[in-house]
């Protein structure tokens, strides 16, 4: 038998918590039919986590639950979780949920002799049996210690209680306040040792982050890191720090940059779809403009785009971009573009990440722009930001979303990366830098590609200008000392133009001179010819005269002869 079943993988029985992310790191949920201890200080979300476990059990897995509260009355609980969208009243009416408030008032209770906690057992057992509960929460059972003074009895009874819960086969959550040296004040971890989870609430530089860690989980593998988690209007969600593998699908598609001329700097005419692009540069180098161009281009192609603006409000962004000829408003109206503006310090990094995660789920964008990503640094430490960005980029890649981040360099001089970039640079696929090219009393903007994974690209620093009609990449102008920009470019252009003109006029002048010379030549020829003619004529006259004389002489001789 055993040999036959060896190939089948044994799966530890688990109860899915229904809490986003938690099932992933616990590899399926809490141990089924066993108690789990959740401990943490005040306000870290123990009660909520427990409540969500019960409610999700009912709604998602049809496992009725008993919530035994030692702290809050049932009505308060109902009200508290209502704001998170859980309707306890309805579940109670449907006989899926029992909320029992156990009040322990020391002033009312006098202890006289031996006792046990069978009353509690009976109550709990009755509640479980009434609705056939599979899940039980005891929140916070340590309150008993403040109400009853005989610790020896309490401890023995608690041990019996947890044992009894196991026998009952219910999956239980026991919450406990965090103690000084122990996980819980009363050392409950001694009794509940199948699964222990610690919740923590830390404030670092005025920004609070909640974290969750699985201390132990008998019989199962689990994530051992501290995982940030969030409480928002949908309850708790846990964010695994990194996805386990890098095996996302890649696309051969190319998306255009939207900036006229920039596409030609890439061998294939744009970015790969699903890649991450970083545009870095110092202040005022038109990073936002480039981002807006990209957004505009995607929206024109009817691709859904989300623009996170951490510096400007949507209205301001739209107005500013109008001034350079980009109108984002129609895209917003048609629903292709969503602009989300918030101050980065509004909430912790995780909440930003979660907002994005939710948006991706609901809006399903193909393009995400974060402007600027470096502002997030103000929220957390470098390490935290990096881990958040890793998760962010993983998430975007997984969904094959093209993402463009802008990043602000603090230093003006160095072309090498800044803090923010260093944490991102190895993660991004394409990295553009816009920078100021300073010289002879003016500032010009240049753009160049630092890297572009999997694609040939231009190595030139291209100058670009921003006009009322938008961004224009200038043609490369070579001067004697390299590429020319700004005034130097214009001077050079002017110079070459004038020299061309000069040459032209020189040529014309020479042409005219030759024409004149020819005329002179022709005139000379005419004169010579005239002279020649006159000489010839003279000669002719002489010849004629001579002939005439000869004739006359001959005639005379003739007459003489005849006379003889």
């Amino acid at each position, binding site marked *: 038998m055993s040999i036959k079943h060896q190939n089948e993988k044994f799966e530890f029985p688990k109860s899915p918590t229904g809490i986003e992310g938690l099932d992933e790191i616990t590899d399926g949920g809490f141990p089924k039919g066993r108690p789990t201890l959740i401990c943490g200080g005040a306000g870290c979300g123990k009660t909520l986590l427990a409540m969500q476990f019960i409610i999700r059990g009912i709604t998602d897995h049809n496992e009725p639950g008993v919530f035994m509260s030692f702290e809050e009355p049932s009505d308060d609980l109902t009200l508290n979780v209502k704001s998170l969208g859980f309707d306890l009243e309805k579940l109670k009416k449907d006989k899926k949920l029992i909320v029992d408030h156990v009040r322990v008032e020391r002033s009312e209770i006098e202890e006289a002799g031996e006792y046990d906690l*069978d009353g*509690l057992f009976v109550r709990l057992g009755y509640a479980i049996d009434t609705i056939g509960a599979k899940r039980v929460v005891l929140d916070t059972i340590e309150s008993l210690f403040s109400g009853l003074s005989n610790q020896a009895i309490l401890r023995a009874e608690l041990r019996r209680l947890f044992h009894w819960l196991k026998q009952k086969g219910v999956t239980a959550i026991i919450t406990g306040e965090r103690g000084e040296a122990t996980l819980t004040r009363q050392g409950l971890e001694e009794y509940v040792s199948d699964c222990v989870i610690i919740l923590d609430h830390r404030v670092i530089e005025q920004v609070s982050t909640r974290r969750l860690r699985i201390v132990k989980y008998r019989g199962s593998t689990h994530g051992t890191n501290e995982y940030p988690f969030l409480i928002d209007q949908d309850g708790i969600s846990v964010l695994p720090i990194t996805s386990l593998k890098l095996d996302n699908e890649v696309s051969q598609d190319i998306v255009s940059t939207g900036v006229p001329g920039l596409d030609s700097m890439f061998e294939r005419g744009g970015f790969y779809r699903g890649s991450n692009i970083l545009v870095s540069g110092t202040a005022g180098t038109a990073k936002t403009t480039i981002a807006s161009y990209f957004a505009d281009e995607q929206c024109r192609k009817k691709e859904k785009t989300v623009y996170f603006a951490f510096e400007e409000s949507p209205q301001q962004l739209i107005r500013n971009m109008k001034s350079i000829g980009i109108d984002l408003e129609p895209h917003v109206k048609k629903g292709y573009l969503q602009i989300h503006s918030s101050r980065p310090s509004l909430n912790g990094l995780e909440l930003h990440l979660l907002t994005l995660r939710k948006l991706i789920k609901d809006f399903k964008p193909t393009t995400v722009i974060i402007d600027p990503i470096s502002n997030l640094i103000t929220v957390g430490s470098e390490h935290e930001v990096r881990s958040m960005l890793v998760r962010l980029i993983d998430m975007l890649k997984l969904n094959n979303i093209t993402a463009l981040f802008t990043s602000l360099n603090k230093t003006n001089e160095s072309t090498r990366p800044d803090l923010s970039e260093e944490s991102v640079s190895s993660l991004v696929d394409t990295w553009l830098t816009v920078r100021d090219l300073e010289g002879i009393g003016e500032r010009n903007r240049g753009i160049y590609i630092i890297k572009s994974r999997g694609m040939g690209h231009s190595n030139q620093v291209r100058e670009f200008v921003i006009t009322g009609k938008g961004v224009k990449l200038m043609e490369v102008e070579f001067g004697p000392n390299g590429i020319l920009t700004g005034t130097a470019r214009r001077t050079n252009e002017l110079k070459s133009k004038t020299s061309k003109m000069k040459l032209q006029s020189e040529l014309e002048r020479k042409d005219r001179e030759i024409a004149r010379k020819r005329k002179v030549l022709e005139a000379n020829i005419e004169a010579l010819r005239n002279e020649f003619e006159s000489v010839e004529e003279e000669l002719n006259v002489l010849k004629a005269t001579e002939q005439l004389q000869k004739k006359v002489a001959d005639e005379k001789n003739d007459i003489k002869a005849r006379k003889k």
Partner: protein
Amino acid sequence: MKTKVAEWQLLLYIAGQTPKSIKALSNIKKYAEEHLAGKYSIEIIDLLVSPQLAEGDQILAVPTLVRKFPEPIRKIIGDLSNEERVLVGLNIKPLK
């Protein structure tokens, strides 16, 4: 009989006939006879029989003696072997 309500109404919650509950019952009967002769009533509630009653009086531990009347409600848990504490708890002045 309706008009004559007992001056002291006591409820004893037990969970089955355990040694502790038997002891508690005999103890409270003894004290009541001693100090409250003729003006008390004791009701015994077995939670194993009627568990739904546990919630109403916030019963955790058994045995629990509840003084319903006179008000305020007082609770004494345990087998009631410590007479002094029971009397203090019930606010009965010992006749001694």
